[in-house]
């Protein structure tokens, strides 16, 4: 008998002894106080509390203008595959292994957890290797709960999704918090556009 049959056989025997429990139904996010009505407000609170930075731009043009100024201080930049041409900085392109700055496009953001939703199709190394990470996210794609974000992803899942909820950090050395251990130590969420009007 192979391992698969052995394991499944023992599981079936064990399960047959139990009273079957029904699934309790969809999670309802029970909280003493509701999440902020504006998802961007909730996202900003948590993302900043975790050590991230949040900037808001009314238009892509305004976002691009800011990025040009910001990126000028860096020798080069690694840019994600799905970052629109209008948001690409005018700096030399470097591979993620050596770029001091990475720029990614998020698929969305989550208020309840303060998370950016990053898709493998944008490039995983760009999301992880440069010490500073700028992530563009569309104002319309900031949702209230992680459940909503997963529901949006569900039918179009790439090989990997990363939820990034602040800079890389660790308290493994004597319980003292340090940033930028392996992933980016500085992360800027650049929210572009206004509600309902797109970018």
């Amino acid at each position: 008998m192979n391992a698969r049959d052995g394991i499944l056989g023992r599981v079936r025997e064990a399960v047959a002894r139990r009273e079957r429990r029904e699934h309790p139904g969809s999670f309802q996010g029970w909280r003493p106080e509701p999440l902020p009505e504006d998802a961007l407000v909730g996202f900003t609170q948590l993302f900043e509390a975790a050590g991230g930075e949040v900037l808001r731009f009314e238009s892509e043009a305004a976002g691009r203008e800011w990025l040009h100024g910001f990126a000028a201080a860096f020798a080069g930049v690694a840019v994600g595959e799905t970052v629109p041409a209008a948001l690409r900085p005018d700096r030399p392109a470097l591979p993620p292994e050596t770029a001091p700055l990475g720029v990614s496009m998020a698929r969305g953001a989550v208020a309840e957890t303060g998370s950016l939703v990053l898709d493998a199709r944008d490039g995983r190394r760009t999301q992880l290797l440069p010490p500073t990470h700028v992530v563009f996210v569309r104002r319309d794609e900031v949702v209230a709960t992680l459940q909503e974000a997963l529901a949006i992803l569900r039918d179009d899942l790439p090989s990997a999704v990363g939820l990034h909820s602040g800079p890389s950090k660790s308290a493994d050395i004597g319980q003292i918090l340090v940033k930028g251990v392996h992933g980016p130590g500085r992360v800027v969420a650049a929210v572009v556009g206004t509600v309902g009007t797109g970018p």
Partner: protein
Amino acid sequence: MSRSRPSGYSAESSRILRDDPGMRAAVTAATRTFDDHRRDAWTRIDADAWRSWAEGVKSHLLTHLDTYLEQAEERLVANGAHVHWAETTDEALAALGAVVDRHGVASAVKGKSMLSEELGVNDFLEARGVHVRETDLGEYIIQLLGEPPSHIVGPAIHRSVEDCRVLFHERLGTAMDASPDALAAAAREALREEFVTADLGMSGGNFLVAETGTLALIENEGNIRLSTSAPRVHVAFVGIEKLLPRLDDLSAFLQLTTRAATGQPIGNFVSLIQGPRRADEVDGPEEVHVVLVDNGRTRLLADDEAWEALRCVRCGACLNICPVYRQTGGHAYGWAYSGPIGSILAPGFLGLEESLPLPYASTLCGACADVCPVRIPIPDLLLKWRRDAVDEKLTPAAERLGMAAYATAATRPGLFAVGGAAMRGTPLALGGRALPVLKDWVGERGPLVPSPKSFRRLWKEGIE
């Protein structure tokens, strides 16, 4: 990696308390901090409702586990991942060994995984000549020290900043007065090279969603994301109990686990992995292997009481609040999982005889049950294993005789009074070192000093 066994618990905990008092201080401070954060995080949600819901989902999962295992396998294969089934440690390591051989793996990086500790993955790879590097900062520290982790979530909480300064000075050449930031930067630099050159990345799995074949991994440093993104092959070890039915269930489990573990709303980095890199992706592993591991889990599942322990999400909340764990940290427990949860998992994973005396490493105060995010009745299960140990005659003969004698006396008031008076006499005046059962008891504890008056006498005289 040197590790004692569960049977050495009493001697090892005595040794730690006697010879390494800094460990108690470090572990107590760290676990109190974790627990304070958990407490605060739970005031922001309706924790009772979240925990009851999570208990319900995991109980549903475990009572339909065969169906969900088959579904997870089907989805993973459809996503392009390879699925291996392992009944034992040897089979899990053999699956890894086959991948290592086929890809000619020379070096590997690993994200923190308790199951990989349970299996002894690092020793296995090193014996085959594969260079293997732990990449979680805490795991890296203890790998350099040659120690096992002492906590499910914070593997190096028993080590001080000063310990790390000395270690990094010797191994990475940092200054003896280096700041924690400088130490972390040195580790980042040393490990960055390993990430980008490793042939193989390894991880555990916090959850595996049957509906979508999604492997979910929670962390704070980004090392798991890197370990599962940079090398060309990814091998994930997943206990069969780690499944979740639906993607919709995952959001709550990601949040509840982190809130219970460190008090954060969610880990700084969460990886949701479906399979290998696809044609429209620029990077990611070419192969993803998921090793579904039993290794004693079906034995627990078959137990009418202890199966509930399989709901565990490995948050460490029960360790953080445990007054017994706080005294020693995890090393004394002698295997991968320590604290209250380790003491109830061990008899299932290792066998009851091999696990003794871990079910006794508890005051049964019940704090662990109060904090468990999936409502595992830990104190009940500790008692269950103690009961089984007595039924199977695994407790010391002297203890059995002593308990039988006590039962005889305690059910006969006259005999109890005479016995009590005798016990307050000579033998106990020696601190309990003269009687066989009590000698074992006090060998690893403080001396027993009897009250000069019996309780019944105090009662008659009127207790103030």
